[in-house]
């Protein structure tokens, strides 16, 4: 029983990281209707920036996270402007392939700048741990922090898309780009803003990911990125609460699957879940979401 609890907590911790990454995927998909496969690599860049700020410049952790967020926000806007904006009218496939290209570009640039030697992320958020059941159940401060950050971000995002003018513009663009434009919403600026928010979230996700799993190398973001994409699809891509639930469930399924079925099949189980969800739930899990939203959830794709 204690070991089950332990696995559950590890699962929630891992799932919370997936959830924050999935939020970025879902935001961008919900509004720009594109899968930003470079999202995982922005996470990696965010983690490196925070690492450099802490290790080389000696900045305090919180300032470092803000630095990483600023750099990633700028990076997100630049990438969107250079690589995606010119393709706004192109086929979805072209945008998807461009996103994959951006992903490779970021990975290899990181390789040139920071080299392939893994760096160990400083455990700045480690302020001791909670021990229960004679030390059989250990809850680290990173775990608690990740979960809290996850909840705060989700609430903030839901409020933002529901209550603010920019958020409403986002929802409008998500519902119908053409109509939104006719109503005087600057679609390009709205999409840029989405990328900015998504990338800032990626920076936070990068720092949290590396606090919990401290090895940092240029490929750090790619696998969590793909898993988080799975989580976003699992929760109904485009839906903010869906991404959070999807991420948490995926983390728990991964850890419990490894613990009770087989460590060899851990990843296979995760992706099998994706296939099953896609088979039986071809339409996005809709709308049981936010109290603030109108009938449709804030970012759910347009109803047909």
């Amino acid at each position, binding site marked *: 029983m204690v*070991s089950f609890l*332990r*696995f559950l907590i*590890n699962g929630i911790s*891992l799932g919370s990281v997936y959830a924050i990454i999935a939020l970025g995927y879902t935001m961008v998909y919900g509004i720009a209707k594109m899968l930003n496969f470079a999202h995982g690599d922005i996470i990696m860049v965010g983690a490196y920036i925070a*690492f450099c700020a802490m*290790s080389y410049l000696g900045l305090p952790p919180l300032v470092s996270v803000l630095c990483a967020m600023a750099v990633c926000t700028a990076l997100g806007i630049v990438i969107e402007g*250079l690589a995606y904006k*010119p393709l706004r009218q192109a086929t979805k496939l072209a945008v998807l392939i461009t996103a994959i290209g951006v992903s490779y570009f970021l990975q*290899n*640039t990181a*390789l*040139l700048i920071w*080299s*392939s*030697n*893994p*760096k*160990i*992320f*400083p*455990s700045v958020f480690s302020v001791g*741990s909670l*021990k229960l059941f004679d*030390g059989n159940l*250990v809850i*680290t401060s990173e775990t608690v922090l990740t979960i809290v950050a996850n909840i705060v971000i989700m609430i903030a995002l839901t409020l933002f898309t529901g209550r603010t003018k920019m958020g409403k513009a986002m929802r409008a663009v998500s519902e119908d780009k053409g109509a939104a434009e006719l109503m005087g919403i600057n679609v390009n600026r709205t999409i840029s803003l989405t990328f900015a928010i998504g990338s800032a979230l990626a920076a936070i996700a990068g720092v949290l*990911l590396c606090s919990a*799993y*401290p*090895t940092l*190398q*240029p*490929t750090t973001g*790619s*696998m*969590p990125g793909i898993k988080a994409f799975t989580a976003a699809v699992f929760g109904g891509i485009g839906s903010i609460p869906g991404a959070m639930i999807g991420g948490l469930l995926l983390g728990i399924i*991964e*850890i419990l699957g*490894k*613990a009770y079925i087989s*460590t*060899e099949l*851990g*990843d296979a189980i995760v992706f099998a879940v994706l296939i099953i969800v896609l088979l039986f739930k071809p339409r996005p899990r809709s709308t049981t979401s936010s109290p603030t939203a109108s009938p449709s959830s804030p970012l759910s794709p347009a109803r047909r």
Partner: protein
Amino acid sequence: MKFNKALVAMILAIVMVMGLCTAAMAEDALKMGVIGPFTGAAAIYGNACKYGAQVAADEINAQGGLQVQLLCEDDEHDPEKSVNAYNTVMDQGAQMIVGTTTTTPCIAVSAVAYEERVFMLTPSASSAKVPEGKDNMYQVCFEDPAMGIFSAQIITENSLGSKVAVIYNNADDYSTGIYQNFKTKSEELGLEIVSETTFTDETTDFSVQVTAAKDAGADLVFLPIYYTPASMILQTAKGMDYAPVFFGVDGMDGILAMEGFDASLADGVILLTPFSAFSEDEHTVDFVAKYQAVSGGETPNQFAADAYDAVYALYNASLAAGIDGSTSAEDACEKLIEQFATLQYSGLTGDMTWTSDGKVSKLPNAYVIKDGGYVAYGE
């Protein structure tokens, strides 16, 4: 379309920087192809080999006499790209190959090189499958089975643990190969394995594997894996207040060189490796200094030392066989096969001789990590 030009310019710049490796050298130099992953997830191993080989070539060229030219090609740890890289260096006139760095590509390339009669000496592709059935494929590193067997013997002889847990990478031939032979030898020696768990290259969370070892009551955890996942396992175990003896193999070497790594996590870890950058003998100290100059300040690991030895072993054998820059790759291959039967070379990773099936015989050393350095085991 301005941004396109900017992108192209940036990409070209990157390509040019990567191309610096093949610096122009004398026409009649001995040409060695160096193939390994210089980019991608396994780049750390390929770059270590490249820089290690570079140090050896620089030393040789500074001495005068027969010069060495390295032709480096990236294979991104991909068998197909590795064969392409092989074709590229052969087109550039390579006479022999130092490589390839990683096992899976090496198996693919050595099959082609066997047909075309090109001599290959890999610094680090340690699977038994690499030289199998090929008379022109040799290794500088230990073969995986040998590592597994050595480990089981040392653990038993020194009673380091009675209940052993193994965590290995089942997506990796190196790790699986060591594990299988460790298991066979352990059964023979009566060493009890209480937990066996696996992971893959992409795994970030090791809580399940470490919990399994802890719950099974293991007092020794055998880690036949590379140091990056090993560092995560040590961190996870510390988080659980679990402190068994950790026993690693040569892949563990390099853990202390990771930037930001808390060396106290590795305190007491025992590892078997033919090379230690902390060793105080003159040859190693000299190599470490030169390597740091070439690589921009990084500490060499075992891959770097193996590549350094590979270049020297090929160079010595070439001198003895009378191979120079004008010998064809095919002739060089037959002469080198003949030479390696009797070649004795003492390098950074020990005193080496080779058997006719391409395996090296040398002895590993056991080290204990203490205060951020290596101490020979038993001292």
